[in-house]
């Protein structure tokens, strides 16, 4: 079994995001999107059971490759990454085109994603890739049960349902379904010697186009001049009075 698993590098979420035109400014040092840790964990559990080969795939400006290292530290065998200046400001379809080609390059049977990235959160790339690859998409997975076969529990709008993992498919994994492992010192050192193959757009079959034109970004953050009261024992009464005033009771 061969598995491709996504790792997106994003600006450290603790820092403020700034934009240049319509694009997020990406510092040289980017970190692994936490959302991808869940997909990587699923890939590693499959690797342990089925002796699968796990390759991290990623697109975007590579910089110091810190995020890629963080992904490899968890346990994948290597990485295939694509950096190309022409891809900056990619729409989801362009990204999906690249990721589906990377999945093909590693001949993946299973390609694993997060459900949505922290910075982009278009939340459609896994489904797009499955359509491009012509394989089923098992989206919004919230639990994984690995036996001789693999049973995936999907989150649905009304509850959940189960699906047996097909031998060839795309998965998207929600946060919280599995517990991502933490690398120890040995894992961190071992990651440094794992192979990272770097390719460019000329090495893949790329035919997506930009159909979205950036118009502008407006700051619409609201900070209200609300009241802030430090509770000195009567706080409950202040809330009750307010609820009465609002006719909520």
């Amino acid at each position, binding site marked *: 079994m061969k598995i491709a698993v996504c790792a997106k590098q994003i600006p450290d979420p603790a820092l403020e995001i700034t934009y240049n035109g319509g694009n997020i400014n990406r510092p040289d040092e980017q970190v692994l999107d936490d959302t991808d840790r869940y997909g990587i964990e699923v890939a590693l559990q499959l690797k342990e059971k089925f002796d699968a080969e796990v390759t991290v795939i990623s697109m975007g400006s590579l910089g110091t490759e810190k995020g890629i290292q963080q992904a490899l530290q968890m346990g994948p065998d290597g990485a295939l990454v694509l950096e190309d200046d022409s891809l900056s400001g990619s729409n989801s379809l362009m990204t999906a085109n690249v990721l589906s080609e990377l999945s093909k390059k590693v001949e993946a049977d299973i390609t694993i994603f997060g459900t949505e990235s922290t910075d982009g959160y278009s939340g459609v790339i896994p489904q797009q890739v499955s359509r491009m690859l012509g394989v089923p998409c098992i989206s919004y997975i919230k639990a994984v049960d690995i036996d001789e076969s693999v049973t995936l529990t999907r989150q649905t709008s009304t509850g959940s349902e189960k699906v047996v993992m097909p031998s060839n498919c795309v998965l998207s994994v929600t946060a919280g379904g599995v517990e991502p492992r933490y690398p120890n010192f040995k894992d961190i050192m071992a990651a440094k010697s794992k192979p990272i193959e770097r390719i460019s757009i000329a090495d893949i079959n790329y035919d997506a186009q930009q159909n979205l034109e950036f118009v502008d*970004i407006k700051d619409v953050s609201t900070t209200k001049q609300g009241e802030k009261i*430090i509770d000195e024992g009567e706080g409950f009464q202040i*809330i009750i009075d307010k609820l009465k005033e609002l006719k909520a009771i």
Partner: protein
Amino acid sequence: MKTLIIGEVVDNKLSSGALEIVTKANDLGLDYEIVTVGSEESPNIGSESFKNTYMKCSENKLSLGSVADKLKNIIEENTISLVLAPSTYVGRDLIAFLSVDFKSSQISNVINFEIEGESVITSNSINGGESEYNSKISSPNKFLLIRPKSFEEAALDLNINFETVEITSEDPEVFDIFIEEKTGPQLEDSKIVISAGRGMVDSENLSLVQDLASKLNAAIGGTRAIVDAGWMPYSQQVGQTGKTVKPDVYIALGISGATQHQVGMKDSKYIIAVNKDEEAPIFQIADLGLVADTLSIVPKITENL
């Protein structure tokens, strides 16, 4: 502009997300039809005012790929240029599949849009709702995922007159279908919503929230942190990856106020927040903020109501 709205059948009716889009489509005077997806026998989803096709799927199959194939035909045959779907699980899968078929990227998290000639100008919320991003789409096919609660729900007389298309396919089998029980007031339509965060300290303390909610006839929500921790089912998560609510009163108990949470509740009419940390970001959007310990204040409110 010829438009297709994708709706779902929820409790035998057309989903609220679709009805919200209908309002906007009517405002803009769009020429639209609706395709509804579901597995129920004879739902009330038809209307005199638009054409409705029902894609009836087996609930035991993962058939959205096959639904997308059929949608593709409808879009081509009727030369539809604008396709709108609510940002739900089903909506996201279908719009993603179609965007590949028509080689035209979708836009997610759309909160408003306008027509400009043959183009569509969209506003979508980014960065946890702190910024609004405006784009123009001029490609022949345009695919938009609309955030819930962006528009008011249209009031329509729904009936059972629609065309049914049975979806049969070789798609993966689905089993052990579990429907979460819905009890008490629902998040989407309650006038009061009380949400809990990690500041309720322990899952057992959620009974305090429950007691208060019963007295106020309020729906209960939560942050992703406590949903991930298993304190509450996902259906009660409020925020970017959960539900969007706009009640008259939103009470946030022990919630830090991460942007991903704010985006799901900041448009509530009145926000009350209780947090022991004076600097918690939730206070920036609260109308009334109490710097207090949830565990001591919540039972006192309930007792004195």
